[in-house]
């Protein structure tokens, strides 16, 4: 073990520090009765403490207070007002704080459900306040809640999107006005406006009264002289024609020109010019009417002539058409007759051909019938011959047949006997093989089973049970299975191992296994056939079964273990199972052998 040598040095350092502190405190406090501490084994240069003088020049202020020793007395009467105000202040503070906390609690209760439950349950009047606030909130949000809905036949007031506004009305208010809108413009006002406009501008009325000119042609006297201001006189051009012009129209043109001239110069057109114009126009109109009449008569004459011409032409064409029609008719008649003749010829030829064919077919059929009759006749004849021959030979032929039947019986019987002999032989061989299997199983040492099983397979042949049983033998058993004694011996090795892990818990580690090993030594060892599912009972039952030679029971018991116990017993279990399987199959094969014996 390592020794720490520096501890000694450390302790010495501690001592030095302690002594120095002591010195300094002594010097400061000026205590007379302090004795210098003597440190054993210390070689440090601790100077002996000198007796301190009673009065040192460097006494601190603390000494006076230290020497007095008593605290200052509290101020007497001046404390009361401070206390009173303190109490009031305290009360005020508490109530303000309480109110804040209470209000805060109420607000928070409105926000948080859990706190709300707590608050309403534990705080006095908390529920009432919260309810009041909540109701108010509800009223604010849904003012119409709880009221009855309006019935449909009540008169309703709807306000349009623009919104409604209010105004002060007096006692003479008669209700809302039903007339036009306040800012609507009335109709008569519009007309008045137009009239005023007319009054404002009277001067430029129509400069050329054209309709006024045309209508009073037959009544020139009613025409009023037009008065136009000089400044507004129109500059009317004269009509000028370059080419030739009809003389009546020429008069019209002259009169119009005269009118224009009058208008241009005098600004007034008297009835003379208008009368001249009207007269010329009337002249023109008469001429026009006469011309029209003349042309009409000419036209009717022409039309009549044309009608005559067309009628003649029409008759001629009609005659031509009739002629043509007759020619076409004749042509079609001839064609029709020719076609009819042709078709008749074709049908005649076809009929002749069919008749000929029918004759051929019928004659062939008749010939066949004759041939068939002949064949039938021949057959009957041959039958007759055979019958007579048979009748003659009847006795000899039947005898031959009997002989043949008997021969066949005998062959069948001999075959059957052969097969039976075979079966018997096979059965015997099977019994031998099974016997050898049983002997192998009952031997005190392990016997390889492969040759025996091969022999059984050979002898078994096609028997399905034997084939299945042989196939079911585990491959690992071909080398042999352990005897019950060997299994028991192995079990004796296995049992202590299982005991070691009998108390192991599920998913155990080192501690679990160690504990199990330790405490399993304290378990009672059982014998015989105890009832119970614990490990010791199972082991005892398995052991007694093995002693009796009942491997199957022992295997079943060990199989009921679980976890590590079963894991350790796996190999033994495999061996045991092999043994039991082979035993079982051997039994089955033995039964099958017995069945074979009884087969015939």
């Amino acid at each position: 073990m390592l020794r720490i040598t520096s501890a000694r040095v450390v302790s010495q350092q501690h001592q030095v520090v302690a002594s120095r502190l002591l010195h300094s405190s002594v010097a400061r406090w000026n205590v007379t009765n302090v004795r210098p501490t003597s440190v054993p084994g210390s070689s440090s240069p601790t100077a002996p403490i000198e007796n301190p003088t009673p009065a040192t020049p460097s006494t601190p202020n603390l000494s006076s207070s230290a020497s007095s020793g008593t605290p200052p007395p509290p101020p007497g009467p001046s404390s009361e007002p401070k206390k009173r105000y303190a109490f009031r202040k305290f009360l005020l503070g508490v109530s303000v704080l309480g109110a804040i906390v209470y209000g805060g609690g109420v607000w928070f209760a409105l926000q948080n459900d859990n706190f709300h439950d707590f608050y309403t349950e534990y705080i006095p009047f908390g529920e009432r306040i919260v309810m009041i606030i909540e109701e108010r909130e509800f009223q604010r949000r849904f003012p119409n809640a709880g009221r009855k809905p309006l019935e449909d036949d009540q008169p309703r007031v709807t306000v349009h999107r623009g919104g409604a506004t209010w105004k002060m009305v007096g006692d003479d208010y008669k209700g809302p006005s039903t007339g036009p809108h306040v800012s609507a413009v009335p109709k008569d006002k519009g007309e008045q406006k137009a009239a005023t406009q007319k009054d404002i501008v009277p001067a430029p009325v129509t400069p050329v009264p054209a309709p006024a000119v045309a209508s009073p042609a037959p009544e020139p006297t009613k025409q009023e002289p037009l008065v136009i201001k000089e400044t507004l006189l129109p500059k009317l051009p004269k009509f000028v024609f370059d080419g030739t012009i009809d003389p009546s129209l020429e008069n019209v043109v002259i009169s119009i020109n005269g009118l224009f001239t009058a208008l241009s110069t005098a600004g007034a057109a008297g009835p003379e010019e208008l009368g001249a114009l009207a007269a010329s126009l009337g002249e023109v109109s008469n001429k026009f009417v006469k011309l029209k009449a003349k042309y009409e008569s000419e036209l009717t004459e022409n039309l009549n002539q044309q009608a005559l011409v067309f009628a003649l032409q029409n008759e001629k064409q009609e005659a031509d058409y009739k002629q043509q029609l007759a020619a076409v008719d004749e042509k079609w008649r001839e064609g029709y007759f020719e076609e009819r003749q042709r078709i008749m010829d074709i049908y005649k030829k076809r009929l002749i051909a069919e008749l000929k064919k029918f004759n051929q077919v019928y004659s062939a059929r008749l010939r066949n019938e004759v041939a068939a009759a002949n064949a039938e006749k021949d057959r009957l004849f041959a039958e007759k011959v055979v019958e007579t021959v048979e009748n003659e030979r009847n006795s000899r032929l039947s005898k031959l047949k009997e002989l043949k039947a008997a021969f066949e019986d005998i062959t069948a019987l001999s075959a059957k006997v052969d097969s039976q002999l075979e079966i018997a032989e096979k059965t015997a061989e099977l019994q031998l093989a099974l016997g050898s299997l049983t002997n192998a199983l009952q031997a005190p040492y392990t016997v390889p089973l492969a040759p025996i099983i091969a022999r059984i397979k050979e002898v078994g042949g096609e028997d399905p049970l034997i084939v299945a049983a042989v196939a079911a033998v585990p491959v690992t058993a071909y080398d042999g299975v352990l005897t019950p004694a060997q299994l028991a011996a192995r079990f004796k090795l296995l049992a202590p191992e299982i005991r070691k892990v009998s108390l192991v818990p599920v998913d155990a580690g080192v501690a679990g296994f160690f504990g199990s090993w330790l405490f399993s030594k304290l378990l009672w060892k059982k014998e015989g056939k105890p009832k119970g599912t614990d490990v010791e009972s199972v082991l005892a039952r398995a052991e007694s079964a093995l002693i009796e030679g009942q491997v199957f029971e022992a295997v079943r018991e060990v199989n009921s273990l679980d976890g590590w116990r079963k894991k350790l017993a796996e190999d033994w279990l495999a061996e045991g199972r092999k043994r039991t399987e082979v035993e079982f199959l051997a039994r089955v094969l033995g039964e099958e052998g017995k069945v074979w014996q009884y087969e015939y």
Partner: protein
Amino acid sequence: MSAVKKTTSEQLLNDKWDVVISNTLVKTALGFGFGVVTSVLFFKRRAFPVWLGIGFGAGRGYAEGDALFRGGEAGVRIVNP
């Protein structure tokens, strides 16, 4: 005869114990060794690093043994599905 001896199922745990104990001893010894070295080099020959090393070694050995017994590889913990 094969060179590797086929272990029967009864010997499973014994083999496991062999491995665990040997592993623990080796690890403890290693821990002891590292503890001594550390103590001499860094801690002025005090006793506690040695104990610490022994503890580490033994703990590692125990933990690996635990894992081995629980069926996983040493160092890998199998969680039950």
